[in-house]
């Protein structure tokens, strides 16, 4: 259950042990509390009050809290109670709560496969009609945000917060040192590998132990090689979808890159949770890195003057010569999402829908996200970008708005079980212990539901 590729998720492994212990210790307490009162579980709202569970972690936590506070101040008759959970604890907790019909009114989610799971079990309401009644809510948001909220043609969640695309970062100083230009095609990328290796610089930084970091490469390669339909067929559970020629070609290309020593030595031992992969970039030991847009913030914070002095560069993922995919297609988490629990009372649902409409991405909320360096999913928000982060925000904004389609992070798009199998096989693919064909055979055998 690696998460979403939201900025908070990089923290997840670091705290998982602690949260696991906390849960273990809280379990008996929770059990006795439930046994003694039996009415409301933890985090449940009182009568006439709607509830929402959010994730902790600054600056997002402060923005989420501010939006709830502002909503409550403006709606004295309909209150919303917010509870905050650490990322890993949240994922276990929300599943347990939804399964026990104790879910909060508003269910925060990464969309995709997790949302599909709720829909299949009738735990969230269909919001299609509500969107038809409130066309503004839909039209002001990025179009690329909606596919991950749409299950079988119906919209079950409201996109909110920020877009987190995967970006190819590079170290401008190292490119000047070897006299090279950032790659625009796959062949150029492969040609750069020996150039940097000869100069004693790792071509690409990669935190291979975290596995989802490797997955981002395949997300792009499948799309650039064969277009969106390759993974769409996989997500739809079509037989032998992993054996598509474009899929095999993408898997082969990644192994070519591994064999050419494209990734930093010992990448299988590097974990993303300590940001060691980013450190390789800003310390000038690796030339490029494919990573989520959220690493911009952490490199700015931890990299000394690396970002502020303009040494950090960014480009879209290179095109593949002869590939069927559109090079403008974005990859990553298109937004965060909130769904409406079908178990909530009519009164609670009314409050939640009002919050969806006026509380989420209100003017003040949008300003807050922009000031934090993020790109909220509102059309035209680029007019608010200013200050030193504006060039990067503009790049992210353009990636999201000019993309013809968007690839949702695979482990979010798939159901949790298959997603775990996928990560296992990706790790073996990158360690060259299985061939592309074996990868496809293994994954074809995984039931998609």
């Amino acid at each position: 259950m690696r998460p979403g590729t939201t900025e908070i998720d990089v923290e997840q492994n670091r705290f998982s042990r602690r949260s696991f212990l906390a849960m273990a210790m809280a379990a008996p307490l929770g059990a006795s509390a439930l046994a003694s009162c039996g009415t409301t579980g933890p985090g449940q709202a009182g009568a006439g009050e709607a509830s929402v569970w959010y994730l902790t972690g600054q600056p997002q936590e402060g923005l989420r809290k501010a939006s709830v506070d502002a909503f409550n101040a403006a709606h004295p008759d309909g209150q919303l109670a917010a509870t905050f959970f650490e990322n890993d604890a949240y994922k276990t907790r929300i599943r347990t709560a939804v399964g026990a019909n104790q879910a909060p009114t508003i269910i925060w989610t990464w969309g995709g496969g997790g949302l599909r799971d709720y829909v299949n079990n009738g735990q969230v309401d269909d919001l299609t009609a509500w969107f038809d009644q409130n066309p503004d809510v839909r039209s002001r948001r990025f179009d690329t945000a909606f596919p991950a909220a749409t299950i079988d043609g119906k919209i079950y969640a409201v996109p909110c917060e920020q877009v987190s695309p995967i970006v190819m970062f590079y170290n401008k100083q190292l490119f000047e040192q070897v006299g090279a230009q950032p790659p625009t095609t796959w062949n150029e990328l492969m040609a750069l590998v020996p150039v940097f290796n000869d100069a004693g610089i790792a071509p690409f930084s990669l935190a291979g132990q975290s596995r989802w970091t490797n997955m981002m490469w395949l997300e792009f390669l499948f799309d650039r090689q064969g277009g969106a339909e390759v993974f769409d067929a996989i997500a739809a559970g079509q037989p032998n979808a992993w054996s598509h020629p474009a899929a095999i070609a993408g898997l082969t290309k990644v192994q070519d890159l591994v064999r050419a020593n494209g990734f930093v030595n010992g990448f299988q031992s590097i974990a993303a949770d300590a940001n060691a992969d980013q450190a390789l970039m800003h310390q000038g030991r690796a030339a490029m890195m494919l990573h989520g847009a959220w690493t911009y913030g952490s490199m700015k914070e931890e990299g000394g003057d690396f970002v502020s002095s303009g040494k950090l560069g960014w480009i879209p993922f290179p095109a593949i010569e002869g590939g069927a995919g559109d090079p403008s297609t974005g990859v990553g988490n298109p937004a965060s999402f909130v769904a409406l629990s079908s178990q909530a009372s009519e009164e609670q649902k009314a409050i939640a829908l009002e919050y969806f409409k006026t509380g989420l991405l209100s003017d003040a909320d949008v300003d807050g996200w922009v000031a934090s360096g993020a790109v909220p999913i509102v059309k035209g928000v680029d007019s608010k970008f200013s200050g030193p982060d504006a060039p990067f925000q503009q790049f992210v904004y353009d990636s999201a708005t000019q993309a013809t389609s968007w690839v949702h992070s695979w482990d979010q798009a798939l159901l949790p079980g298959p997603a775990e199998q996928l990560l296992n096989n990706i790790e073996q693919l990158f360690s060259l212990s299985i061939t592309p064909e074996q990868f496809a055979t293994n994954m074809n055998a995984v039931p998609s539901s």
Partner: protein
Amino acid sequence: MTSGSVGARQQGSLSWLVLPALVLFTAFGVIPLIGVLVLSFTSWNGIGEITLIGFGNWVSVLADPALVHSLGVTFLIMALSWAVQTPLSILVGVFIAGQQRYRAVLAVLYFTPLLLSSAAIAITYKALLDPNFGLGASLGIPFLVQNWLGDPVLAIATVVFVVSWQFIPFHSLIYQGAVRQIPASLYEAARIDGAGRVRQFFSITLPQLKYTLITSSTLMVAGSMAFFDLIFVLTVGGPSDATRVLALDMYLRGFRGNMMGPASVIALIIVVVAVLLAMGIQRLGGKDAGESQLEGA
């Protein structure tokens, strides 16, 4: 032994003392175990309907090569860490059992790993073993710059090393206590017979430590069945599934893959294997359990 009637009366009047432990054990041991047993016959993803599917999970898990692999990894780590820890613990234990002052000082140093939690140890070693920013790279020692956690064989070795580093102090402490219980008269007699230090160690110290060895081994073996935290933080079972021990397999299937049925099957397998192992070790030393080699007993 006092008379039977007094013993019986005491037993009758004091049996309520068992109650708190019994209640806690039932609430947190027996009842969850029954729950897991029931879940092992169902299909449940954590949020949907719980449906009975009979022996489906048992058949699929027992036929899954991943289970054999996890069992193999578990036993391999168990055997290797026993083989590394036991001799070292005995040697350290015997050494610090001596009364010299410098040994007491060293003993304090040896015991520091006991103060650290598994999670802290795992995070620290992960940082120390990082190929780019770890100990080897920082101090410029090429030998230490290895793919410690990324190579299947090295990863197992690393796990065994870290486990041993963490638990040798604990077992040394047990052996230290046991060595100090050995009557000095045995050594005096041996010296009179002309036995040297090495001969004394193998002929007196080791045989006298037999029951301590069994206790320590039971703790090691039962402990390795439940290994989770350290490996979870250090490798998450990786690379690929090279260090995916049973307990980790159970967690990943249950809480990452959301397949509670198969995870419950593995939980029960862990319980059965651990109980069998513990019984087996007890039996190894159990034939003459009533016999004591202590002087005068």
